[in-house]
């Protein structure tokens, strides 16, 4: 009886939108163990609700992961956090380490200077990629940065030559 109530309570609390998003991700790649290297390119925050920000960075062929790139984020009140991409190109920042105030992204400061709130730098600091628009609430980068450029997506996050 008690177990039944618990199951019922869990079902009642389930978010049907999130459940559908999780289902849409499909199964794990059997050749990649579940962990920091799994599911590159997929919208991390759909499952990882303990992440403040996460995504995947590619080289300029848009396929090869960019390992060792530094992703830096500056929020609306100037709080900053960084992460380094792993061999799958994945990076993540936990909420326990950084709680951004939205929006995060490019803006003009009081002195008329452009502040790039989201940037990615590989081994060559002259080849930084900077996001030119804003993120209003969801730093699960791959939710917008999908594999193909479409009307709804600017395509994958990538850095040009100089990638490590």
């Amino acid at each position, binding site marked *: 009886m008690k177990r039944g109530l618990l199951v019922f309570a869990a079902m009642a609390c389930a978010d049907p939108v999130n459940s559908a998003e999780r289902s849409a991700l499909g199964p794990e790649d059997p050749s990649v163990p579940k962990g920091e290297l799994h599911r590159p390119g997929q919208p991390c925050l759909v499952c990882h609700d303990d992440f403040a920000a996460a995504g995947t960075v590619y080289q300029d062929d848009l396929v090869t992961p960019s390992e060792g790139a530094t992703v830096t984020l500056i929020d*609306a009140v100037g709080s900053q956090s960084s992460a380094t991409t792993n061999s799958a190109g994945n990076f993540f920042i936990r909420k326990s380490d950084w709680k951004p105030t*939205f*929006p995060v*992204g490019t*803006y*003009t400061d009081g002195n008329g200077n452009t*502040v790039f*709130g989201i940037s990615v730098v590989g081994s060559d600091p002259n080849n930084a990629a900077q996001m*030119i*628009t*804003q*993120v*209003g*609430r*969801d730093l*699960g980068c791959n*939710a*917008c940065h999908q594999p*193909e*450029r*479409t*009307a*709804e*997506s*600017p*395509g994958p996050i990538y850095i040009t030559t100089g990638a490590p």
Partner: protein
Amino acid sequence: MRSYAYAIVVASIAALACFACQFASSDLRTGVDAPDLGQFETAGVADYMDHRCGSLDCHGQATRNLVMWGCNGLRLDPNETGLIPGCRASGGKNTTPEEYEASYRSLVGLEPAVMTAVVQNGGQHPELLTFIRKARGWDAHKGGALVTPGDDQDVCLTSWLAGSADQTACANAITETP
């Protein structure tokens, strides 16, 4: 006798309901007194909203009730695959007239009766509109409270609703707000 009266009442209500349905045409349209489309485009109201509300993770999503199109987020033409993201300054393509109009229609069609009432009253009580209440954080809004009554962002929106969009406030709203 009592059940006879009851039957008459029920029959009368049913007849009235059928009669009423005859006037509810399936292609019935209602108009809306809306603020000016030209000002929405040229005074910077749309550009401000695209910048502040229209990112791809917020109202730049086609599934939202309020959808914003523009060069900072969602593009209108589904065939524009491969487009360089962003506006012209960053190598992309600026918001098109069609995108401005689509955003306008999305906004003014959200609550047509309320929009009509606000516009007919010269922009008095813009907070009757849900999008104003949400922007101010007075209604639940996942994006939080974005504007404060009287600041440039708020003035940009409310002046447009009142019939004379404040171009300076809209320009400031873009540059002042991260």
